[in-house]
C-alpha cells in the first residue's frame, strides 16, 4: 500500500545510503485525492477540525479517513488537518475585515465623506 508505513523494518522506503525516500509524484497525487475525499466528507457533516473532533470524524467518515491515512504519512495527515482549520480561520478573518471595511466606508459616506 503505497509508501506509507514508516516502520524501521520497511526497506522499500529507504535509500541505499540510509535516507528515507519521500513520496513520488503519483503517491503525492494519491494522497491529495484521499485528502480531498476526506475533507469533502467533513464538509458534508459540518466538521471543521478533524483533530479536535477526531471521534466524530472517524464515526461519520470512517471509510474516507482510513483511505486518507493509508495514502498519506502521519505527518502529512496532521499537517493537512491543521491546514484546513488554519485556512478556514484565515478566510473568516479576511471576510470579517472586508465587512468591517465596507461598514466603515458606509458610515463615513453617510457623514459626507467621499472616497478619492
Amino acid at each position, binding site marked *: 500500500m503505497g509508501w506509507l508505513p*514508516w516502520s524501521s523494518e520497511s526497506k522499500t522506503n529507504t535509500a*541505499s*545510503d*540510509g535516507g528515507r525516500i*519521500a*513520496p513520488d509524484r503519483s503517491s503525492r497525487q494519491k494522497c491529495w485525492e484521499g485528502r480531498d475525499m476526506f475533507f469533502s466528507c467533513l464538509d458534508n457533516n459540518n466538521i471543521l477540525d478533524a483533530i479536535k473532533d477526531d471521534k466524530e470524524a472517524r464515526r461519520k467518515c470512517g471509510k474516507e479517513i482510513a483511505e486518507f491515512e493509508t495514502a498519506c*504519512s502521519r*505527518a*502529512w495527515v496532521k499537517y493537512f488537518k491543521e491546514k484546513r482549520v488554519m485556512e478556514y480561520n484565515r478566510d473568516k478573518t479576511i471576510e470579517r475585515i472586508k465587512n468591517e471595511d465596507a461598514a466603515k466606508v458606509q458610515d463615513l459616506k453617510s457623514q459626507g465623506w467621499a472616497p478619492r
Partner: protein
Amino acid sequence: MASTMRPLVQVARQATRSTLPTLERSTIRTLSSQNAFPALRNKTAHSAHVQTLRSNGVASQRSFSSTSLRAKARTMGQLKARNSTGPFSWKSALLFVLTGGAMIIYFRVEKERIARKRVAEMSKGVGRPKVGGPFVLKDLNGNQYTEEDLKGKYSLVYFGFTHCPDICPDELDKMAEVIDRVKEETKGENIFLPVFVTCDPVRDTPEVLRSYLQEFHSDIIGLTGTYEQVKHMCKQYRVYFSTPQNVNPGEDYLVDHSIYFYLMDPDNDFVECIGRQDTPESASQLIMQHINDWKREGKPLRKD
C-alpha cells in the same frame, strides 16, 4: 502622463526655434540693408551678424547653421509666401507627433528599467541587508559546491525538502516551467542556474534528492550537506530553519521553511524574490528582464 508632457512642450519649442536661423539668413541676404524684419527676436545678435556680413562679404553667411540652404527668395512676395504659415506646417506637425510618441514610449521603457535597476541594486553596496553569501555544500555527485559556482550566471535558489506535503511540489513544477522558458529565451546560453537546497539533509541524501528532482526538471541542481552546513546556508539566505537535529530513525516530521525563490545576479547578490503569487509567465518575464538589463550594461556572463 503629466510627466511626459513637459518634455514634449520643450520639443515643440525647439522645433519652432530651429526654423528661425533659415528665416534670419534669407532676410539677411535680400534685406541686408533694410534691417527691419519684425520677427527677429535677437536684435543685437542680428545687427552683429549683419556687420560681419558687410565687412567679410557673403562667405561668412553659413557660420551659424549647418542645414543646407533653401532656394533663395528673389522677391518680397516669395519671401512672404514662404513664411506665411509661420513655423507651423504639416511637416513640423508630423515631426512633433512622431517625436512626442517616440519619447513617450522611450520614457515608459526607461522608467521601468530604472525601477528594476533600483530593485537589483538594493542589496549592493555597504549598509544594505545582505541576502546570500559564502557557503559550502555538496552537489548530487558528491562534489563540493560553493558560492563561486553560482558566480557569473543568474541563479534561482529555492529551499525545500523532499517530504514537503503540498507547497514545494507546486513550486518546483513552477520552477521547471520557468527553467524551460528562460532556456528558450536565452537560446541555450547556459547563463541561468536553478538551485534546490534541501533543509532536511538527514533524510535528503544525494540519492533521494536526485530521484526527487528528476521528477521535476533534470536541470535543477540539488544541494545538500551536513546539518551545520545547511543551517549556515539557510542563515546566509535569511531562511527560517527549523529542522530538528536529532530525530530517531523512522520518525516522521515536517520542516518549516521559506517558500520564496531567490533570484541572484552573477555577482551573487540578491536581486528579487519570486513567490507564490507569481505565475511561471510572470516569473520568467521578471528573470529575463533582469538578464537583459545585465547584458545591456555590458557586464560579464559565464556561458560555459
